[in-house]
């Protein structure tokens, strides 16, 4: 028995036993074949990078400078700050860092809830709409209204509805239904988080619905028919056919919803104005306030870079995780 030889067969066995190994080899061949589309994409990609890369580099440079109103006219002359801006941003014992981390955690919770609800409602509605029934077309149009409305107009309407003294929401839950002792505040204080969530889900789920509808239409009907013949019920069909077939669609949908929601600026800005209540202080508005309201562009940029890094890591992990998962299901 040799000690050196032992691991080799072991590895081989592992490879043999790993059902993903064979498809992986096939995939690398496919990758070569699909090189052409990537080549064709290259010009657009280069332009994209040029348009976005330059500002990004400037943003990173600014994050290392002490850029305030004194230097904004010629930002290149702003003195270097080293890592000061980053130190301020992540000094969690001082107000700036403390506010940033609070805002970050708020945004994480908000994003998880909002994306989850958007996905759930969108998927449920899409599955429901697969059935042919009277008024389906009308309902489908109705579902898409929030998606089609201009964001500003829609959110400002919500802001009116959520007003404490004159808004329709308190009129219904307090005046008409008598559910509360006194009319609650929705735009300030702790409830602001709920307000933000409601508006965000209202605005976001039609997109999930739209994408899911498109995904569902790609699933051949005969699979369902075959499954029905084999005795699968509706729930089993959803669990065994619909959801697995939607997996690639879901991957993109969840990622896009995550990024949109995490970066959402319009909704809190229109609902709450320049200074959101602490409970609903989303990170994009927080960074805006740190840069444009207090004219501390260096710190704002440092926060943006930190956010960018976070999103890159999360996105990378997500892609890694979900494609691993996919390999497993391929097997």
């Amino acid at each position, binding site marked *: 028995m040799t000690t050196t030889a032992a691991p080799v067969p072991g590895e081989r066995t592992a490879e043999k036993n790993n059902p993903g190994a064979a498809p992986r080899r096939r995939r690398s061949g496919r990758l070569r074949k699909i090189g052409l589309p990537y080549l064709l994409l290259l010009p657009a990609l280069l332009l994209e990078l040029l348009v976005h890369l330059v*500002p990004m580099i400037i943003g990173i440079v600014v994050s290392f400078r002490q850029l305030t109103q004194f230097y904004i006219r010629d930002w290149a002359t702003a003195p270097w700050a080293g890592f000061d801006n980053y130190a301020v941003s992540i000094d969690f014992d001082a107000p700036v860092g403390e506010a940033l981390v609070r805002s970050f955690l708020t945004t994480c919770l908000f994003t998880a809830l909002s994306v989850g609800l958007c996905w759930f409602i969108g998927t449920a509605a899409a599955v429901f709409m697969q059935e042919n029934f009277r008024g389906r077309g009308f309902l489908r149009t109705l579902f898409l209204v929030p998606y089609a409305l201009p964001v500003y107009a829609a959110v400002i309407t919500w802001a009116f509805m959520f007003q404490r003294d004159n808004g329709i929401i308190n009129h219904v839950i307090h005046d008409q239904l008598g559910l509360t002792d006194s009319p609650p505040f929705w735009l300030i204080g702790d409830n602001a988080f709920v307000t933000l969530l409601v508006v965000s889900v209202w605005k976001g789920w039609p997109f999930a619905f739209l994408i899911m509808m498109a995904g569902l239409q790609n699933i051949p009907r005969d699979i369902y028919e075959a499954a029905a013949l084999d005795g699968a019920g509706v729930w089993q069909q959803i669990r065994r056919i619909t959801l697995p077939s939607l997996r690639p669609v879901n991957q993109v949908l969840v990622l896009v919803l995550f990024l949109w929601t995490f970066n959402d600026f319009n909704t809190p800005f229109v609902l709450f104005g320049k200074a959101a209540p602490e409970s609903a202080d989303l990170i994009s508005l927080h960074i805006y306030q740190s840069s444009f309201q207090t004219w501390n562009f260096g710190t704002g*940029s440092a926060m943006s870079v930190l956010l960018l890094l976070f999103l890159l890591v999360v996105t990378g992990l997500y892609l890694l995780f979900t494609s691993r998962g996919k390999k497993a299901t391929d097997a």
Partner: protein
Amino acid sequence: MRRIRAAAVGAVTLSLVLTAAACGGGSSGSGGSNEQPKTLTYWASNQGASLEVDKKVLQPELDKFEKETGIKVKLEVVPWGDLLNRILTATTSGQGPDVLNIGNTWSASLQATGALLPWDEKNFEAIGGKDRFVESALGSTGVQGKDPAAVPLYSMAYALYYNKKMFADAGIKKPPTTWDEVTEAGKKLSKDGKWGLGAEGSNLSNNIHQVFVLAKQHGADFFTADGKADFTSDGAVAAVKQYVDLMAKDKIIAPGNAEYAQNQSLSDFAKDKTAMVLWQTAAATFEAQGMNKDEWDVVPAPVQSGEPGEGKGTNSMVAGINLAVFNNTKNIDGAKKFVKFMTSDAEQTVLNKEYGSIPPVKAAQEDAAFNTFALSPLRETLATSAAALPQVPEESQFETVVGTAVKELFADAAAGRAVTTASVKAKLEKAQQQMPKK
């Protein structure tokens, strides 16, 4: 897989856009030229009931200017919410208007950017001299000891507006002149769904205006003499507490006002739901909301005790709009001519009459139109007992952080949470630490 990669590319670009949003680039030269002597671009702030109203008021005057000088003025009316960011963007890119309106409290902050033409002796001579302007209005044109960054255009001051009938019904004989009297009257008035005083708890600037004046009355300022943030002095804390206590302790401001930021308190006043408001030049708004002139009256804003005057008798900030010239204008001579035109006695009378404001030009103030029951208290206040907000480069930051602190305290008060000296001080301390380090 392909879809995932596309999504990954999308994700990366999306994040890049985000970062890009927080920065900008470019530089601009200093000092104007006369490359384009026949045109000017003018950014006017939104003064009238709507942008359209402003255009209607200003266009005939701009036509008059064109007839006189042959210079065509391209007008753009910019809403308040956008103005400061638009100016900042123009400053960074160097692509701004030739002449623009700025809120006078931003003078020192914008002066620090170096984007605005300094009004030295020579430039002031070109528009008729510094002496033509009211002293207090000149006080908010930039840091003391430096050439002003702008010229006063419209002036306003705070005063106490009250509902005559509601006062009579509550048996209040004369309008309040001190805060004690305001509270006393407010308590009589706050019942049956009606309230004593209105406030705009979520409006950061308005919060600042109110607590600044109260701080003066407590002998405090929010900045030290050498321009350092000083938000936590006893006077400043007492001022903020006194203002929020009008809701928290005295209960003469409706809790709902904590979320007001769109002048809803003026609508409440016009609808007889609130008996008093502290506001600057509100007459036109009341009229627009259907309130008759004989239903309300106006007196100087309250002080702690005694008579309004300088120092502890300060009862208003110097509110108003200034006119500035962008340093890199391509028509420097035309820009100065335009400023001269807009600040001429005749134009001052026309424009301030239209907007219900007070001319910062002494000669124009003589016009009978500014000697009405609605404007006299404001004019008097500006002349004797108004003070300019701190003219420091960090003024804009101060408005944000302290204005937000007051907003949060109002939210606490509205939710029934205790507002104590300690909680006020904690909020102000946090605000101070958010100011950029010098």
